[in-house]
């Protein structure tokens, strides 16, 4: 590349790295948030089940 290959590959590899990091960062952040939301729901469902059960036992 007339001795300019180093510059060209440096620019292209940096670009690909930057785009991949941006994509991965957004995806990972969304997954983390969705996991946190699902976990909250599961915890709430479990707590609700536990508070209901003692009440049902006392009726009998």
């Amino acid at each position, binding site marked *: 590349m007339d001795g*300019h290959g180093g510059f060209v590959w440096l*620019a292209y590899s940096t670009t690909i790295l930057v785009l991949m990091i941006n994509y991965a960062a*957004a995806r990972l*952040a969304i997954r983390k948030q*969705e996991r946190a*939301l699902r976990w*909250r729901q599961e915890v709430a*469902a479990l707590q609700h089940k536990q508070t209901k059960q003692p009440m049902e036992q006392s009726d009998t």
Partner: protein
Amino acid sequence: MAVLLLVVGCVWGLAFAPADYQQGNSFRIMYVHVPAAMVSQSLYLGMGVAGFIGLVWRMKLADVAIAATLPLGITLTALALFSGSVWGRPTWGSWWEWDGRTVSTLVMLFLYLGIYALREAIAETNLRARAAALVALVGTVNIPVIKYSVEWWNTLHQPASFSLTEKPAMPAEMWLPLLVMVLGFYCFAGHNVLSRMRLEILRREANTRWVNELYTDSEVALPTAKGT
């Protein structure tokens, strides 16, 4: 779509586009530098529009858009400056020149970073949104400065590769891969900004009923914020 366009554009630009008669093969850096610069400026303009909408109509989605645009805008502006510097070394003989376009692009990077720092510094949501919107709106004055700097000042930087009103100065086998790369970058930016907007909305609305219903398998819903 973005991946396909970027792969096709990169391969075409690296392997099949002819070398420039003056710059040789270093001109191929144009295929990453120009799209990064164009998209970073478009993202800033988008932020300015969102800022205007947020200030006038107080729409929360405008602030969501600004928050979602910032990370990609910062990285693409930095990438445009870096790739421009790498291109400048073999072309101009130096890594950096205090040229009109390079300086105004650097100012745009500082504006992006300033808006990010402002958002991180202010805890109160409405005040943070208004401050960021105001800075984004005022900073849009820099966009025409970047665009016309090569005409207004005696600069080293070459004129625009594309123009809406004139035929490109390059032959088709040189500007077609550039067009493909520009489209690829825009598709990527659109996808990334929309993903981050989704993330931002999920974060802000985490305590609302509609988000809880999206992420629950059981019949029990969490107690939600008042009025939601």
